[in-house]
């Protein structure tokens, strides 16, 4: 009996307790073993988990291909930046800003969704791609005639998240133990990522989730079943965008700096890759996809140079280029050998094997 089987045979409460201990202990192990760089990667991984879960609602549940998803992340980030920085001298509390950011992103989701409802597949992809770029270009140019976003220079000195009077950018002493700032951030992001995950799971297993799946499977039949496909699709855009906006706000507070170049098309594509690579529509798979695609590129970034040095005695290929090359190969390999993703919905795996 291997460890995995042992785990699945345990009572649910024991499983839950083990999971909590593992998730709570993880940042300390990473911090002690690999250092702060990797703790930051871990925090970012959680942000990407939230993003991927949000995009999964649009792409995985409702089957609408969105190539401009990062725009909602940008909206959330800029809302946070504008409401908690010296830019306008506003310093709202985090509990006020995060919902406002999510709502603003939700509004943008509806703005994007409404005119594109008749489009599907390639055409929808092109329009959403354009939308993502429009938002980024707006951020880049909204410094004149009235300076709102500070243009390409971005907004700096954004307030870190404050909870109960304590800023997450400062270490915290509890019972004589010093918890580093990056670990505090980890816990906060983890809590929100778990909430997003729970919301996704519950939505999927509900009347709304079934309506999304029906539209994905056969839109005409869904209409014939009395589903108002227009509203239900808009809802998918709005929900996905809200989660993106939430993640964006966290990103701004974590970096304490935002600029338009963080929201390029490449970022949209990365998040889409996380969803597709992990297993479209399957929440555990999407989380796995987000973790793999955040951690592996970082590992290449830090490991490729030293490994080449050790094997060949010199660095033959720039780690940055090598990273993209390996990433491309990995994507092609996954699509060839696991076309439904690394961890697809068990039911859909049957379907792909049957072909």
């Amino acid at each position, binding site marked *: 009996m291997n460890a995995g089987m042992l785990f699945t045979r345990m009572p649910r409460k024991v499983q839950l307790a083990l999971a909590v201990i593992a998730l709570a202990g993880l940042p300390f192990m990473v911090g002690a073993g690999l250092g702060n760089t990797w703790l930051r990667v871990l925090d970012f991984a959680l942000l990407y988990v939230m993003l991927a879960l949000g995009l999964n609602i649009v792409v995985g549940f409702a089957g609408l291909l969105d190539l401009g998803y990062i725009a909602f992340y940008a909206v959330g980030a800029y809302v946070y930046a504008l409401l908690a920085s010296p830019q306008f001298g506003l310093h709202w509390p985090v509990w006020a800003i995060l919902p406002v950011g999510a709502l603003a992103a939700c509004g943008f989701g509806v703005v994007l969704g409404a005119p594109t409802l008749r489009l599907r597949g390639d055409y929808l992809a092109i329009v959403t791609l354009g939308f993502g770029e429009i938002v980024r270009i707006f951020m880049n140019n909204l410094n004149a005639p009235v300076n709102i976003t500070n243009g390409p220079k971005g907004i700096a000195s954004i307030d870190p998240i404050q909870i109960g009077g304590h800023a997450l950018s400062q270490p915290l002493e509890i019972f004589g133990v010093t918890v580093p700032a990056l670990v505090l951030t980890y816990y906060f992001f983890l809590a929100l990522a778990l909430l997003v995950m729970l919301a996704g799971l519950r939505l999927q297993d509900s009347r709304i989730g079934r309506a999304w799946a029906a539209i994905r499977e056969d839109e005409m039949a869904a209409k014939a*079943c*009395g589903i108002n496909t227009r509203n239900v699709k808009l809802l998918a855009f709005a929900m996905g965008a809200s989660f993106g906006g939430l993640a964006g706000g966290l990103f701004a507070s974590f970096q304490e700096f935002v600029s338009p170049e963080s929201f390029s098309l490449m970022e949209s594509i990365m998040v889409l890759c996380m969803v597709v690579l992990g297993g479209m529509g399957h929440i555990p798979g999407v989380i796995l996809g987000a973790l793999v695609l955040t951690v592996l590129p970082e590992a290449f970034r830090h490991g490729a140079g030293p490994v080449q040095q050790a094997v060949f005695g010199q660095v033959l290929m720039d780690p940055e280029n090598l990273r993209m090359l390996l990433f491309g190969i990995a994507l092609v390999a996954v699509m060839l050998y696991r076309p439904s993703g690394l961890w697809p919905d068990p039911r859909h795996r049957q379907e792909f094997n049957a072909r």
Partner: protein
Amino acid sequence: MTALPLPLPLLEARNIGKRFGGVRALQDVSLTIRRGEIYGLIGPNGAGKTTFFNVLTGLYPRDEGEVIFAGAPLPLGEPYRVAQAGIARTFQNIRLFANMSARENVMVGCHARSKVGVAGAVLRSRAQREEEAAIRRRADELLAYVGINARAGDLAKNLSYGDQRRLEIARALATEPQLLALDEPAAGMNATETGALRALIARLRDDGFTVLLIEHDIKLVMGLCDRIAVLDYGRKIADDVPAEVQRNPHVIEAYLGVVHE
């Protein structure tokens, strides 16, 4: 003995017209479906049966005419509103949600008659859990009604052809329709499956449903329907009880051609 009152009309289609470019697919088609009857719509290939069906269910916008359903005009060009108004349909080429289970397919059918939204779903409110349980119960009842409850957990696409037809009917019934419109339900079925389907449709009528049946299988239509309308080249050429329709010279001409001396 008192005279039975005439059954009320459930659906009245008045002067329906539909063009595709220069082709007049439907011209001036009027028909009345009474509550509780099985109404057949037949005609040679290309006569406009499916077009009429699609116009009725809102899939195609109609160019002329109006439809009064259960006393109110039927909304135009919005299939989901037609379904909400109480007309459910099946498709000539089965359109199930292939990668959802049979039960989930029927549960989707319950969408129009349930109402919990995002907040309820995310918070798992009491109302949501109760509604969800009711939807699930209803789906299982309907699967049992059409006789495929043993396959409830299977993906729709793994069902046999006959079972897929039944599942589509169960999903249509889940929308709680007043009129059930079946587009060639016996197409592609063997004799045994057709016999079972016939029994199911007859049972639907006995249970008080009104059925509009488009069918190629003349034997099935003649045996089942209370009244039959015949379309030819987009026009209605007959509308009567089966025995009269079978004797109607226009119908014989449409199906067999004219004898030239």
